[in-house]
């Protein structure tokens, strides 16, 4: 398979000299990867139609062509606005998004009456809505790239964004359940037929704030400490912000009844803290606090009930989904059965029975897809997620300013954690919680927020890979950073 991959990769890798590789923008590599991704999306659509309809309709290529137009437009925007951005990010995300749209259309096909299937409009149903959301998200991502020409400029709005993030998190908690609750989790703002998940956007806003705050505080957090059991622990008073975020995430757990989001916020903060200080003790403290909090909530749910009852129930389902397979455990059991019947290679795109799983278009899309592409295909999707995260962390390592490092590292980790939380939930590794699968699940908020996240990563990776053109270094050129250097040497800001 590597041999087959080599020709496609060669246009990007030939003719490079070690010395000048950094000056290469690698946009052509991105273009060829993107075209390959689109071919895969088209192949997926065709296979689905062949399986479900028994024939490939003459306009099976239309959805892919629309997506191709959108993604290629973004590619052109990147060419102009972030010419040195990472070449792997856009194609990988485009592939996931394309397969998500394709799977949602496949669900629409399965839902339609057999007679109507061949004439089912392409832009109808969930799949059609996801098309519109993809279009809007990509436009937003391009807009963010255009507005934010230097990632450090958003640090100016850090406190505003932090406040906005907290407000966004709190809105669903204080809204009456009628407007915010879907399947027991209060995560939405529902107006009319529309539902927005503000937490998805809060994630981004909070991360900008965390990154900014920690850049300011990293010295005191990493230097002042006392040693215990061979690990440097921070002083008591420096624990304040961590405890505050912990309280916030526990409140989310209690009032919004959502373990996933709570885990996401807390994990995000602890990892940014770890990146900022390089202290393993923060990870330990974070894990202990989180598991302690979750266990406490579980016990309280048993004893007190009330706001903790939902979490207790979910933990019960997780411990033994087959205890009540037709009621409480139904969704998880159906998901596990789907993954099991998919086996190693799956039933083929269009060959499974995804509609047996409740909410297969949202939380359980990974189980639905898994039934059809099997472990072999699912692991490919997971590796693609892994590559996206890796590119994000790579950008974080390579970018020269601390804020950019924390921002990109935190964003990449958050994306990875979200995939872990939902895939772990579906596969019964951790208690199931209603997270969306980034780029795959139906839902505009999630798709938009994650595309914005990718736009920020593209921006940071552009800054990281951009060659140093003058002695002033990127910091001096971009402005806002350290003052013009006093000496002739190029500035090397090297910090852990």
């Amino acid at each position, binding site marked *: *398979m*590597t041999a*087959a*991959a*080599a020709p*496609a*990769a060669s246009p*990007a*890798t030939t003719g490079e000299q070690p*010395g000048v590789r950094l*000056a290469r923008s690698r946009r052509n*590599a991105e273009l060829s*990867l993107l075209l*390959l991704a689109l071919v*895969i999306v088209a*192949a997926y659509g*065709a*296979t689905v139609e*062949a*399986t479900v309809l*028994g024939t*490939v309709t003459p306009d099976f290529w239309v959805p892919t062509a629309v997506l191709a137009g959108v993604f290629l437009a973004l590619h052109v925007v990147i060419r102009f606005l972030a010419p040195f951005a*990472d*070449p*792997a990010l856009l*194609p990988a995300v485009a592939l996931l998004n394309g397969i998500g749209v394709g799977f949602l259309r496949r669900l629409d096909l399965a839902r339609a009456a057999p007679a109507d299937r061949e004439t089912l409009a392409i832009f109808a149903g969930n799949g059609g809505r996801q098309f519109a959301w993809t279009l809007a998200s990509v436009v937003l991502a391009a807009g963010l790239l255009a507005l934010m020409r230097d990632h450090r400029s958003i640090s100016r709005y850090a406190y505003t964004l932090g406040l906005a993030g907290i407000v966004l998190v709190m809105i669903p908690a204080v809204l009456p359940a009628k407007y915010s609750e879907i399947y027991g989790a209060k995560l939405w703002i529902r107006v009319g037929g529309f539902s927005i998940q503000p937490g998805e956007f809060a994630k981004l806003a909070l991360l900008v704030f965390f990154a900014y705050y920690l850049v300011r505080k990293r*010295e005191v957090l*990493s230097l002042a400490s006392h040693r215990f059991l061979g690990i440097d622990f921070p002083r008591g008073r420096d624990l304040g912000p961590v405890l505050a975020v912990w309280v916030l995430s526990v409140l989310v757990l209690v009032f919004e009844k959502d373990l996933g989001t709570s885990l996401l916020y807390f994990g995000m903060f602890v990892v940014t803290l770890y990146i900022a200080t390089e202290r393993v003790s923060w990870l330990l403290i974070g894990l202990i606090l989180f598991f302690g909090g979750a266990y406490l909530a579980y016990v309280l749910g048993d004893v007190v009930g009330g706001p903790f009852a939902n979490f207790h129930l979910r933990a019960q389902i997780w411990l033994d989904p087959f205890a009540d397979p037709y009621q409480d455990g139904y969704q998880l059991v159906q998901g596990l059965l789907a993954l099991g019947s998919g086996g190693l*290679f799956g039933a*083929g*795109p269009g060959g499974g029975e995804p509609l047996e799983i409740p909410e297969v278009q949202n939380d359980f899309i990974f189980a639905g897809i898994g039934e059809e*592409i*099997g472990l*072999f*295909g699912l692991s*490919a999707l997971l*590796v*693609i997620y892994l*590559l996206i995260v*890796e*590119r994000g962390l*790579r950008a974080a*390592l*390579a*970018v*020269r300013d601390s804020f950019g490092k924390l921002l990109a590292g935190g964003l990449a980790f958050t994306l990875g954690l979200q995939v872990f939380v939902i895939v772990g939930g579906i596969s019964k590794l951790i208690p199931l919680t209603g997270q969306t699968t980034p780029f795959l699940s139906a839902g505009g908020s999630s798709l938009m927020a994650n595309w914005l996240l990718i736009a920020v990563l593209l921006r940071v990776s552009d800054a990281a890979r951009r060659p*140093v053109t003058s*002695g002033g270094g990127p910091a001096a050129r971009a402005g806002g950073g*350290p*003052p013009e250097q*006093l*000496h002739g*040497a*190029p*500035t*090397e*800001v*090297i*910090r*852990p």
Partner: protein
Amino acid sequence: MPELVITVARFGFLILLWIFVFTVVGVIRRDLFAGARSGRLVAAPRAVGASTGQPQAKPAKVKRGRAAHQLVVTAGQLAGTRITLGEAQITIGRAEDSTLVITDDYASARHARLVPRDGQWFVEDLGSTNGTYLDRAKVTGPTPVPLGVPIRIGRTSLELRP
């Protein structure tokens, strides 16, 4: 649609997915291994390599093997960091605009600098609070730095390497 075609499409799709994965890995392959080989802090080598592209060619006239080509941090928070030496001086301190920014409690904002003169590097203290030491001796004026002798600044140690 015949069964055979669907089977081919099924497995073809899976293979395509993995081809995509390997192609992406192919594109980013260089990045993946570049960091592992050099073992430097990732922020440093690229910019240094890019900016010292020509200077590195020039000092080749100087006797090879004897001249210092790298500054390595051997102890302290930045241990393992390498800076490729060019012809420009290296400033060391906590100030953001230093060539080597060290986060060390005992370092001053502008602590010391390394200056090349005729292929030999000199260390010079810039009036730091806690002083700069070459091995055990306190640096008072510009002092030549032999290869492999530690320069101590606070908890950080630096060495010149060929």
